[in-house]
């Protein structure tokens, strides 16, 4: 199928205005006849559900957590970008647009990014009006700070918990609409499948995680706001429940999955300490302002206490390789440099997968009090987790999976190629290209939910007769039966290995072969091993308990089964993309100095994969990327 991205005509700066002008409207009386199903209640889901309800649509919103306020958007620390230019430092919509396209290593769709930059300013207004307690100056105005990949201060923040505060704002808007009767909320409810009727997404199948009841819900459109797939690696900074199920099920019903190989590895996380480890914890990027990253020069020194390694035996490798950016080199570059040092046998700590982030010099320069004021909460968190004080010895850090830029393919209206199925936030693919800049994820989630979808859903809905399909339709009965059978199947296998043991094995394999650096041989090896592991899963997994009650093992089994399939597509995409860009680094494609080498002649497109019924043979559709405003250049941080 040809991909129509529906990018509006006209100059870049006018596309969104023109599109809004040209979009069809639905009159208020008719809006209430339409039902919209919103899956997920993070920044994208909550803001979309609340705003669509304000407009008059009937909304049903689903989340697997016990409350919509717990969606993983809540864990974002740093901040949210907006082109407000309150600092008078030369920021503008165009500059934010440009930084984001460049930061994405020229693999994002320009028109979407420009719209994102345009609405960024409205997001801040909206959040402040809701009572989000952003940091402020003494004069009462909003404070800003800088983030990676930008030379202006455009990041708004609320202590180290900007994600929680923005989500609580969106959650309050959702609560307002639940109270008014416009939204019906279904917490502890997990989506198991999308229902397609005559080629259109017309509903979903869900499981009530308290009673185990599997149910069907019909609607006139479905919105997936279900986040990223970072947990395919098992260990990541994602919450334990984050999963690919909703987007993967939609993919198997016809929605294209775009650029799954674009995964972001964050350089500063607390390293793995043992095989019992369940998740990885991020240490804010801001620490690199005052910390110096190093490893011993000699592999024989890695076992020594850091204080006993003299200055001349230390390799401050980021300062050495990137003298102008030093310890503040971008995420993808810093991550790869840490991996290289550890691959050379110079990594520190258990398993040799760690590098030092050393504050000794800053403490000497500014005093411990100042450093504690700047980073006290992070030092405390580090000590709680590792039992070590970063005031007395260097932190040990290592990169970890953090965010996924790939996702379901969507057009300018945020609709997938499967009519009626819309995809918002991290779950879609469109705005961050091959690498996301810090403080841009929150911006995109809220832009999609508050300002984009309320306009772009109408052009689809006007083509649909409201409530034309009910759950009595045979397709619903069929999907319900399939979901019930699948659930029973997990319980009936009664094998020997736990769900987690499979998830761990899959994660290690994918991390090893399709993590920070990838090559053809490794990816081909992964593609041989994944189907074998999947087969073993389906024959020897054990899921205790019953399907008719709260059963966390059963929930995990469904998610891991989908990761087992998705992992194959992830590796296929990484294998096919014979270039290095952003978070996708193929060791065969680098400059002599080790920097990523893009191939714009052959790979300047988004890869939208189509499910064919055979997991080993997905069909590749290409959306060419045309750059009208930004010129393709090599990213350099030397």
């Amino acid at each position, binding site marked *: 199928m040809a991909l129509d991205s529906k990018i509006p005509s006209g100059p870049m700066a006018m596309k969104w205005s023109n599109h809004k002008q040209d979009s069809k409207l639905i009159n208020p009386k008719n809006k209430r006849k339409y039902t919209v199903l919103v899956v997920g209640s993070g920044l994208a889901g909550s*803001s979309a559900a609340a705003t669509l309800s*304000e407009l008059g649509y009937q909304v049903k919103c689903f989340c697997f*957590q*016990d*409350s919509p*306020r*717990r969606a*993983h958007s*809540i*864990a974002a620390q740093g901040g949210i970008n907006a082109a*407000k230019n309150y600092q008078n430092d030369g920021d503008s919509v165009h500059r934010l647009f440009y930084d984001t396209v460049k930061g994405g290593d020229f693999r994002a769709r320009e028109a979407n990014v420009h719209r994102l930059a345009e609405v960024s300013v*409205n997001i*801040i*207004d*909206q*959040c*402040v*009006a*809701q*009572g989000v*307690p*952003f940091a*402020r100056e*003494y004069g009462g*105005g*909003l404070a800003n700070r800088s983030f990676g990949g930008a030379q202006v201060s455009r990041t708004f923040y609320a*202590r180290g*918990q900007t994600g*929680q*505060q923005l989500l609580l704002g969106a*959650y*309050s*808007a959702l*609560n307002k609409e*639940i*109270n008014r009767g416009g939204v019906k*909320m279904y*917490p502890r409810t997990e989506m198991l499948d999308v229902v397609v009727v005559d080629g259109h997404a017309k509903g979903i199948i869900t499981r009530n995680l*308290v009673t185990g009841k599997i149910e069907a819900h019909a609607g006139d459109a479905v919105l997936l706001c279900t986040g990223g797939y970072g947990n395919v690696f098992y260990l990541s*900074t994602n*919450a*334990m429940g984050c999963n690919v199920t909703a987007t993967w099920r939609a993919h198997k019903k016809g929605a294209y999955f775009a650029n799954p190989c674009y995964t972001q590895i964050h350089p500063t996380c607390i390293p793995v*300490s*043992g095989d*019992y480890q*369940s*998740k990885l*914890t*991020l240490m804010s990027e801001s620490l690199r302002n005052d910390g110096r990253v190093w490893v011993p020069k000699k592999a024989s020194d890695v076992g020594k206490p850091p204080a006993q390694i003299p200055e001349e035996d230390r390799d401050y490798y980021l300062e050495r390789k990137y003298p102008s950016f030093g310890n503040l080199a971008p995420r993808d570059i810093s991550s790869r440099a840490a991996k290289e040092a550890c691959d050379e046998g110079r990594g520190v700590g258990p398993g040799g997968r760690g590098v030092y982030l050393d504050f000794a010099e800053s403490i000497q320069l500014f005093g411990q009090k100042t450093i504690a004021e700047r980073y006290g909460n992070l030092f405390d*968190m580090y000590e*709680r*987790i590792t*039992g070590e004080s970063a005031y007395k010895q260097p932190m040990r850090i290592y990169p970890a999976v953090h965010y996924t830029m790939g996702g379901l393919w969507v057009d300018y209206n945020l609709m997938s190629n499967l009519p009626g199925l819309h995809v918002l936030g991290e779950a879609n693919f469109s705005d961050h290209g091959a690498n996301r800049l810090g403080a841009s994820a929150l911006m995109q989630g809220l832009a999609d939910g508050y*300002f984009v979808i309320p306009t772009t859903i109408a052009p689809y809905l006007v083509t649909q007769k409201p409530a034309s399909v009910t759950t009595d339709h045979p397709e619903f009965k069929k999907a319900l039966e399939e979901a019930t059978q699948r659930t029973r199947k997990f319980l009936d296998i009664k094998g020997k290995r*736990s769900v987690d*043991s499979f998830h761990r094995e899959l994660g290690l394999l994918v991390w090893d072969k399709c993590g920070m650096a990838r090559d053809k041989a490794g990816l081909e090896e992964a593609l041989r091993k994944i189907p074998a592991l999947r087969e073993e899963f389906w024959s020897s997994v*054990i899921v205790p308990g019953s399907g008719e009650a*709260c059963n*966390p*093992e059963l929930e995990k089994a469904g998610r891991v089964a989908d990761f087992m399939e998705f992992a194959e597509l992830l590796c296929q995409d990484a294998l096919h993309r014979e270039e290095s860009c952003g978070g996708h680094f193929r060791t065969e494609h680098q400059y002599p100095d080790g920097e990523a080498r893009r191939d714009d002649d052959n790979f300047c497109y988004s890869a939208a994969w189509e499910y064919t019924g055979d997991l080993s043979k997905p069909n590749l559709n290409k959306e060419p990327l045309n750059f009208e405003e930004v010129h393709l250049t090599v990213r350099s941080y030397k």
Partner: protein
Amino acid sequence: MSLLNLQLKVWRQNRGQSGHFQDIEAKDIPDHASFLEMMDIVNERLIAKGEEPVAFDHDCREGICGMCSMTINGVPHGPEKATTTCQLHMRKFRTGDTIWIEPFRATAFPVIKDLVVDRGAFDRIQQAGGFVTVRTGSAPDANAILIGKEVADAAMDAAACIGCGACVAACKNASAMLFVSAKAGQLNSLPQGQPEKDRRTLAMVRQMDKEGFGNCTNHYECEAACPKEISVRWITKLNRDYAVAAVKESFVGQQERAEGGE
């Protein structure tokens, strides 16, 4: 890293049935593991023996989502101050320790399974009035509303509440006053929250009472248990805001009340 041998007394319960403590031996637990990772290890062993693992709520495992909810040795979130269960690590325990693990207990938090409880009451209190009524797109420029740094910082202190329910579990009356006062207090102390301050306060407090939470008798166990160190001074503020709103309402009469409670 050393290994710990522990004796667990874990609450097991199915929905709608009565529960009991189960003795579970937890041997060779790495002291670097988090408390929830200890539970993961225990569960893997139960599964290997063909038994049902212990159900517990958890998600972000970095102390911000508010999903984890265990009472450990009688203290919600366990012995470490200002720390959620997921951030508590086993090095805080000694080999040979007996650890009692219970759900967050309160009439308003019915048990779903084992350590998993239903905290939907918190959502319903928020739905009753925990918001500023502002339509998307109708907001003025963000810097058109100037808010002094002290006021903004205080609102942020209240907003740090993660809605876990430890305050309720810690209270001998199972009162939700610390939670409700933090949520109402954040909005009631900001200029954006002034126009509907009274109706918000009344609606949230009334919903709280309807959910079956107990009354506050100022023992401040809630503040001691709160992983985000929310101050009980917010309870003082809520009492004041409620008194003002209730008095105003009694002057305005029944008609306004009907609207306020809709």
